């Protein structure tokens, strides 16, 4: 499973966005994500995580996206690991511009 990828590499101080081939479908429990390139499905089991993911594209860094959604302190590490898992499955890509 993807989760075996070390979830330590995700850099909160860089700019990220959803992969252009990823579709997001909000659900009561969070959201479903589908990547048309890898044909993989993922689940976001938290509405706040969904908001964070959706705001990544416009935020200067992932840390800014977390803070604008009220995620800070001890929660930060758990969210960082969730984002790292999304990165490992190519749902998130780094924004270069």
């Amino acid at each position, binding site marked *: *499973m*993807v*989760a075996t990828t070390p*979830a330590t590499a995700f850099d909160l101080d860089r700019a990220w966005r959803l992969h252009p*081939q990823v*579709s997001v*479908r909000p*659900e*009561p*429990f*969070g959201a*479903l*994500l*589908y990547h*048309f*390139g890898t*044909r*993989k*499905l*993922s*689940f*976001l*089991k*938290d509405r*706040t*995580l969904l908001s964070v993911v959706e705001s990544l594209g416009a935020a200067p860094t992932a840390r800014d996206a977390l803070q604008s959604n009220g995620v800070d302190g001890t*929660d930060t590490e*758990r*969210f960082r*690991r*969730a984002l*790292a*898992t*999304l990165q490992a*499955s190519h749902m998130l890509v780094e924004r270069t511009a």
Partner: protein
Amino acid sequence: MTLLADPPATPSAPGSVPGPAHDPGRSPGPRPGTRLVDHFEHGLDAPICLTWELTYACNLSCVHCLSSSGRRDPRELTTDECKAVVDELEQMQVFYVNIGGGEPTVRPDFWEIVDYATSHHVGVKFSTNGVKITPERARELAANDYLDVQISLDGATAEVNDHVRGPGSYDTALRAMQNLHDAGMRNFKLSVVCTRYNIGQLDEFKALADRYGAQLRLTRLRPSGRGADSWDDLHPRPEQQRELYDWLVAHGDDVLTGDSFFHLSAFGQALPGLNLCGAGRVVCLIDPVGDVYACPFAIHDEFLAGTVRAPGGFQEVWRHSALFTRLRTPQSGGACASCRFFDTCKGGCMAAKFFTGLPLDGPDPECVQGYGEQALAAVSAATSTPRPSQDHSHRTERKRRPVPVTIGRGPSAPPVSACAESPLAGFEPGGALR
């Protein structure tokens, strides 16, 4: 038909996909709470994916065909009706459909419907026996990111495959895989229905998939459609269930299963996947005439939820049909509730139980703890098992027989000319009149 459907719980989906919140044990997502599977048991506003069989027509007559396909049904959805279904799926944000049949590619408008779907944000994975996958077509498929192809093959050798799928079908499938490989298509699916004749070939199937750059997908044989008649001959023996389970555990996420083997989880460790019957909760079937069933393995009036042709269309059926509403209420474990494996096996497959005459709240006919055999022994003496509600099988036998004609001029008169005008032309009085 092609076994496309990854019914119970979506195709390569949740199962093979990890996902931030997928496994509460690892809980990469924040605030682990209710398990996802609990959300899914209550159903979603739209299916995660669904199976859509476009036609009952098929060039083959596989003995285990889930939909008893062969002949086209004159009532099948028109091109415009199919496009209207796609419009609904797009609006409901269904990410992709598993298209099958029958052999979907024999529909003259198949490629038009596929193009319409993929240009409307509905991805397509279609199942085929490979008959129309020419080199040219393979190149088109490889160029479309929103398309995936699944080649059906039920034996790693022609002998084993053709016994189930018919003469020549092995060569057809391998030719299609070669064309896809040559066109640069990667990770298309090689889809195998596990039978007692091919369980011993799992390594060979894997090698075959690797050779063509494909991904192996194994699914469970169901006693549905013509499978009801071939089940006793084809379904894996108890010791083969264990062999299959061990092989699946060893290969993990490298092999897709459409979550179809969750009944094997009662051997111990749960297999990757949702381990949930997704019928009417996260998956369903639209059949060629637009009827909506709870799952592709349950084409029977008992599991018919409605039709896309009624007012409100597919969305109305999915969200409000009485059947789906009932399937989304908590299910009783019945006779299985006290089994310590119930939480992972959930009593197994609804369709497998139904078509073998077992009660839906009892054990699966292939329960690996042996409860299924006991239950089957109890029903076999009783009434007959339910039959599929429809049958589009070819009316002819698949087996080739000598054609009963003789060639050459017969013993009597020369053929009558087409220009002969006599009303008695060609008439020969029988011997009785002489």
